[in-house]
């Protein structure tokens, strides 16, 4: 499959402006302009109050029983799947039947949709995707502009287009490489620590520069998936050969990359030397900068549970790193560690690499891929429990009891803490 430069002939345009110009059928657009764009994919995950409501509104309120472009719709069943009860099947039955009726894509239990979307070739460079959930921005790892729109998802759901204001772009030039035992989550939390929880408010954060190519695809997905906590609307990584090779392995579709012009207008341009980043821990309550600290400042804090998974971790890089630390060690007797590979394919790969065996021999539990532990549906935290997690959120009650606490950190920091039974610096193991 040929890779061609984006066919929108503009000068001084950001990648985001090019993607939204193409999606809006316009020769060019500028940040601040209102556009009516046609997303290449409209993604949702099945959750009560969302897809059931959307199907009801589509059919009963809007009278739409036939989708104009069913292939545009992608519905993931990745939440509320781990109990195996009749209640769960009933919950998803309506969605499965609707997808069968309309021809919408239904991706059932293959893992966390924000990741599986890439595995199935739904995240192509230069394309535009909307979802009600903002973690879809992780697809920016592949040069896909993924924007979370929450309740506005109704608009593309019934019209296949969405009205939005073209966001400005903050460019982050990455240099160097992450030190051993430092990962992309540390990069993401460093951005919040340095620039604040509204540091990139309403903008798209574009990552490029020589350091960007030193990050694995899973690491880029983790950064993009959490970019909402910098205040940003989305994130984009410049496509490189790693992305191109991956995309060609999952899709035959023609690729039209969108790359910012050399004279593109950025809201701001920031340089980050990856080698300056150290492991960070986010204290319970909020992801903001005030809650973020160096692992050395919180090391020694008692924790009893660990979770490696979610759309912002749990990828093969994370599982390799965790297994690397846990090999030859045991999870502390007072600690319970669960590892949830982000997709079935990742679990299969981890099995082939012998990583699952290493984790289980060390005393970790490896669970089937889903979103369920991240929001407290599977293995909820009990009152008084303290968890260290690679999940997406650490507000009180997110993973179970409102009287439990969640620290957030990288997969390696969670693995090191699992061995120590308290928060530990992975560099000192």
């Amino acid at each position: 499959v040929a890779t061609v430069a984006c066919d929108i002939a503009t000068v001084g345009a950001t990648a985001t402006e090019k993607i939204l110009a193409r999606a809006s059928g316009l020769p060019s657009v500028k940040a601040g302009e209102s556009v009516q764009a046609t997303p290449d994919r409209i993604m949702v995950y099945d959750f009560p109050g969302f897809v059931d409501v959307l199907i009801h509104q589509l059919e009963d309120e809007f009278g739409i029983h036939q989708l104009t472009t069913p292939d545009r719709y992608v519905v993931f069943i990745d939440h509320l799947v781990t109990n195996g009860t009749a209640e769960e099947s009933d919950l998803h039955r309506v969605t499965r039947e609707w997808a069968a009726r309309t021809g919408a894509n239904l991706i059932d239990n293959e893992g966390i949709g924000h990741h599986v979307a890439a595995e199935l070739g739904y995240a192509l460079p230069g394309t535009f995707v909307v979802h009600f959930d903002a973690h879809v921005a992780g697809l920016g790892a592949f040069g896909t502009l993924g924007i979370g729109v929450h309740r506005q998802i109704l608009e593309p759901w019934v019209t296949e287009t969405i009205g939005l204001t073209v966001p400005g772009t903050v460019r982050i030039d990455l240099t160097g490489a992450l030190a051993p035992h430092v990962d992309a989550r540390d990069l993401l939390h460093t951005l919040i620590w340095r620039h604040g929880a509204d540091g990139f408010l309403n903008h798209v954060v574009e990552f490029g520069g020589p350091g960007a190519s030193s990050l694995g695809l899973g690491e880029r997905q983790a950064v993009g998936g959490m970019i909402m906590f910098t205040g940003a609307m989305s994130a984009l990584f410049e496509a490189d050969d790693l992305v191109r090779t991956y995309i060609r392995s999952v899709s035959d579709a023609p690729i039209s990359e969108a790359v910012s012009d050399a004279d593109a207008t950025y809201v701001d341009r920031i340089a980050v030397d990856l080698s300056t980043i150290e492991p960070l821990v986010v204290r319970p309550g909020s992801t903001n900068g005030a809650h973020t600290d160096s692992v050395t400042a919180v090391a020694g804090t008692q924790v009893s549970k660990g979770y490696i998974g979610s759309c912002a971790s749990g990828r093969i890089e994370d599982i390799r790193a965790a297994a690397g630390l846990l090999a030859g060690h045991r999870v502390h007797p007072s600690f319970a560690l669960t590892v949830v590979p982000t997709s079935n394919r990742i679990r299969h790969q981890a099995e082939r690499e012998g990583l699952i065996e290493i984790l289980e021999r060390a005393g970790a539990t490896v669970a089937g891929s889903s979103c369920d532990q991240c929001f407290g549906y599977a293995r909820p935290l009990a009152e008084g429990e303290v968890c260290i997690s690679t999940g997406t959120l650490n507000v009180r009650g997110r993973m179970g009891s409102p009287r439990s606490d969640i620290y957030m950190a990288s997969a390696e920091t969670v693995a090191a803490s699992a061995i120590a039974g308290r928060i530990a610096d992975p560099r000192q193991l």
Partner: protein
Amino acid sequence: VILEGRAAWVYGDDFDVDEIVGVENIRTFDIDHLRSVCMQSFTEGFVETIHPGDLLVAGRNFGYGHPHDQPMLVMREIGIAGVVAESFAPLFARTEIFNGFPLLACPGVSSVVRRWARLRVDWEEGRVTLVSSGQTLEGLRPAPEAVKQVRAGGGKNLLLQKLVSPS
């Protein structure tokens, strides 16, 4: 769209709205239950003090985190007519404007306005006036699509007008 009411609460920066009802209550749509827990971890009897048309005031990045529907659902139910904040988290702003709820970004508002101050908000002009002193703050005028959505009582109504009963 003109709003006039008292500042029923002044929130700080990076405020996660889920705290209004508590994360344990973000999956229920039982409005009576949501009323009973609204602001309970901040103050006693908040709901009873609200007059229809009252407003919320906040610092930077209001709606940070994973904003769910319940907090503003119950705020509208008890009579809150809109929010004026230094700035809003984009996902929160997008969804609440789509719900037809006026939000005004107005730098400086959280340091000037005290709880129970009476405000007059010309939302489409992006202007906030403190009624007692006449002091005026200039905020950001909402985007044209936001104005259409709020005027229609929400984005769904706008879409229904367009697709189901074109006028």
